[in-house]
């Protein structure tokens, strides 16, 4: 019995509540979705609004979406951008964002986009903690 439960936990499955990592993955792909899945509507809406606004303002400021990494700073920026999940994929697919940063405002925009991704990761981990009961 105990061995069976251990197997379920190891596989990331809970027999009565579904896939444990679903809020984490959903929250990463779509900002706020992890909280929406857990019926935390207010928190999810505020998180989604903040992260989407930050990402959109970054693009509106002609910020750069990192596509390839030439040095360590580019790699870190790329990792931060990937935190936005589908926002990054859609942005790249639509050719949004500047190729080169030429204005001060565009530099701010690039930071907004990276930080939006990092905040989205924090929000997704929070959804996972809510799902596992680590947080109320």
């Amino acid at each position, binding site marked *: 019995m105990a061995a069976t439960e251990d197997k379920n936990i190891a596989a990331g499955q809970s027999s009565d509540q579904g896939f444990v990592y679903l809020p984490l993955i959903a929250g990463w792909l779509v900002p706020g979705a992890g909280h929406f899945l857990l019926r935390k509507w207010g928190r999810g809406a505020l*998180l989604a609004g903040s992260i989407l606004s930050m990402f959109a303002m970054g693009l509106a400021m*002609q910020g750069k979406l990192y596509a390839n990494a030439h040095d360590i700073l580019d790699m870190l920026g790329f990792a931060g951008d990937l935190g936005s999940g589908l926002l990054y994929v859609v942005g790249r697919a639509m050719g949004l964002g500047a190729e080169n940063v030429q204005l001060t*405002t565009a530099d701010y925009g690039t930071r907004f986009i990276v930080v939006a991704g990092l905040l989205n990761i924090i929000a997704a981990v929070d959804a996972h903690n809510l799902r596992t009961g680590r947080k109320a």
Partner: protein
Amino acid sequence: MFSPSHFASVLLFALFASVVFGITQRETPNRMFRYGAYCFILFVGSAIVLSWVMYAIAR
């Protein structure tokens, strides 16, 4: 193109980051709001203080 001033960028950055920090780092709505406000004040306050420090150094 959206081109806010440096200070407006600081305010926007502080607002969005504080909302996420407040919601994710505290458990009850009241404590979330208070922690978010605390983070916002720290973000904006530290930017203002550091700006004056750099101004003083540059003179």
